[in-house]
């Protein structure tokens, strides 16, 4: 997989490059700030563009939300490049902004998650494949921010659990494993969730994303 990295901490950037290279990925770009990332990707031929960009949120010059701005521009200009926001903190506003566009192929993870290397690699691949990957803390916070929602009140406790795991980008198989359910039981729960949230079958796989967005109370872009 071709990966771009924007991270201002040298120690972390070098560590990530080494890790990804060892895992057989091709780090095509390792930038220290948002401008270098955008310029680097713009300069690459479409065929050689990274499939995923790992972007630190807090970067020079102002150390606030440069990474988020860059991610949103990247989504707007090169929709084929998946974006993983990578941060020490989860800010509710940033997560909502990231997800308010097309939520396919984006992710928001705490930097700690890189400690579980295989899961991190898995997350990168899911993003490259167009899934949405959210940190459990992002999910908790967005749900905390949308506790007044009544549309989800009809879900059972189990269905809610399943939906929360879906929000973290897990596949049905992974959800079954986590909740000690059979694959069929998870599928049944998922179908029931779609029904209760009034998501029509013709929405296809997109229904998963729509359901997650509903959970997070982010309006989907039509």
């Amino acid at each position, binding site marked *: 997989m071709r990966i771009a990295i924007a991270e201002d*901490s040298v120690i972390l950037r070098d560590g990530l490059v080494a*890790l990804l290279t060892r895992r057989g990925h091709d780090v095509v770009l390792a930038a220290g700030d948002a401008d270098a990332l955008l310029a680097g990707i713009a300069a690459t031929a479409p065929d050689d563009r990274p499939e995923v960009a790992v972007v630190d949120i807090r970067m020079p010059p102002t150390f606030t939300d440069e990474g988020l701005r860059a991610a949103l521009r990247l989504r707007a200009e090169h929709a084929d490049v998946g974006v993983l926001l990578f941060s020490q*903190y989860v*800010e509710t506003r940033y997560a909502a902004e990231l997800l308010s566009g097309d939520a396919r192929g984006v992710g928001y993870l705490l930097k700690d998650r890189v*400690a579980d*290397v295989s899961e991190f690699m898995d997350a990168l691949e899911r993003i490259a494949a167009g899934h949405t990957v959210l940190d459990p803390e992002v999910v908790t*916070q*967005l749900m905390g*921010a949308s506790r007044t929602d009544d549309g989800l009140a009809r879900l059972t406790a189990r269905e809610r659990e399943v939906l929360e795991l879906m929000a973290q980008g897990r596949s049905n198989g992974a959800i079954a494993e986590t909740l000690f359910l059979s694959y069929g039981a998870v599928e049944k729960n998922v179908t029931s969730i779609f029904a209760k949230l009034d998501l029509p079958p013709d929405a296809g796989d997109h229904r998963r994303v729509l359901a997650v967005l509903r959970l997070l109370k982010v309006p989907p872009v039509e």
Partner: protein
Amino acid sequence: MTPVAPTGPRYRSTGWGPFSTRTWREYSYLWVALLLTPFTLATPFLAIGLGTGLAVTVVGLFAAGGVVLLGRAWGGLFRGLGRGMLGVDVPAPVPWRRPRGRGFWAHVRAFVGDGAAWRGLAFCFLSSLLTIVSFALSTAFLGYGLGAVTYGYWYRFLPWQTASDGTRHHGAQFADGWFVDTTPRIWALALSGVVLLLIWSPLTRGLVHLSRLLMRGLLGPTRASLRVAALEQSRSRTVEDADARLRRIERDLHDGTQARLVAVAMQLGEAKEQLASVPREEVAAPLELVTTAHTGVKDALVELRELARGIHPPALEAGLAVALETLVARSPLPCTVDVDPDVEAAPAVEAIAYFCVAELLTNAVKHSGATGAYVLVTRETDGDGRATLRLRVRDDGQGGAQVVEPTGDGSRTGLAGLVERVRSVDGSWTLSSPLGGPTVVTVSLPLDVAPAI
């Protein structure tokens, strides 16, 4: 009363005695001051008269208050005259303070209770009297002196007068029959004129110096007000410094320790996975060690994050709204937060507002049994046009909240700590928490830390 108290004027003077530019400049000051006297003398009487006469009518107090503030305007004018004509640089007193509270009496107090304005009025009164006396004396000496010196020329144009012995004379008659019309007498008169002129110069300077002293005494800031201003300034610097230091600590943690720990966690994670992929019995012990270390580092990262957030929430750099949204989303209490986008406060003020909300939400969760809270941050303009950040936290709990005064050992409990934070920037706050709820806390903070000068 002023910190700098040079005794003499600070301008260059050329010439000597009655011919020196300094004497003439100071004499012309007396002219200017005399022309202003009708007004300066009227102001204090107007203020007192209006104040007592119209005190029964509510509007009268305001009118009187306005006239009292004229004392400040006169003070400013005379400080300018002093600087330009008398070479004395009197610093302005501490600016007029807008009333702290709202409402009628706060304004009346601020108008009528303004010390600098009253001292300005006192100056107007004393300076008017002094000016009249000084001007009369100085002008008399100057006039007689010049007249006497030039007498030898102009006495011949005086009308003829007949003395008692029948002789006719030109000129001034000092005693019966004693006319100044002989050469020795004319010379003597001229000489007395010279003496008068020689006296006129130091006399004028001396009289004007009294005005100068009066300016220094009544138009400058008082020692106490200077001290208050200095204290306010140093306090706001301290608040800003503390905020900047916390910000820097958080940044250092983020760029240094946290990044390094993440890198270590990443390496341990990889080591763990590599060890796990070889046959288990060979590496059981090292695998366990690495697993423990891995878990420890991850826990440390979580703790460090919470610690850093408590020191200075990084989202504050992106604005109060962003930081508060995360704060309420993380609160176990369902909350709505509403931040007016017009609110733009100094970083230290935003930090105080943030920690106030954090404290109030924690209290609501811990003590009130609330099921929901509402946070509203708006930009308000208080009674006198001072922009403030107003923050209101309301919960639907059981009420009965109160401020517990800090205990002797320096530990502070919830609301008391909040009150101290708010006071550190001269903010104000109100608590309404009847038994049965709801609890509403309103905090008003100036947008800027520095005192409004």
